[in-house]
């Protein structure tokens, strides 16, 4: 799965660590998601969407899209 998390995070001027703290996960998790090495769970994806005020589909999308 691909995502635009890094772009969105940087637009909000948030560090990976701060974002991780707000989501209750480690900086390593945020880094792994941004590098598309790890797909977040549904609850975490929904938390990310809610934090940035965007639908999940605007942040995460399938490889084929």
């Amino acid at each position: 799965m691909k995502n635009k998390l890094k772009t969105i995070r940087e637009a909000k001027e948030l560090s990976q660590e701060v974002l991780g703290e707000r989501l209750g996960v480690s900086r390593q998790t945020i880094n792994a998601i941004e590098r598309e090495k790890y797909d977040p769970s549904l609850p975490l994806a929904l938390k990310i969407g809610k934090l940035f005020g965007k639908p999940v589909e605007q942040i995460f999308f399938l490889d084929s899209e």
Partner: protein
Amino acid sequence: MNTASNSQSPPRTFLAMALFGICMVTGMAAVEFANMPSALRIGLALLAPLAFLYLIWQWRNGVRQMDELERRIQLEALAIAFPLSVLLVLTLGMLQRVIHLPFEDFSYRHLWAMLIGIYFCSVAIARKRYG
């Protein structure tokens, strides 16, 4: 095993590791004292497994406090470590039928250490995938 929300587990885990180390040394030293009553030697020898049980309990608590990526890494590590451990025991078991494996190098205690080594290697392999 550190995460944003993991504040209590590391000290307790390290304490459990230290306790296990002490019990392990005590248990191994018990062998040296042949004049000690057998029941006492057995008791001292079993201190290490009991301490290890406590360590496993703390490790389990630590895993429950990890974030989802760390939990995934632990799960994948176990998925790697278990089959490799089975393979190791099978290999040694088959070799034992055809050659002499010296007890000083291939006792259960040595096998245990090999299995622990396999687990840590598996964690490193699993972690590298997401690094």
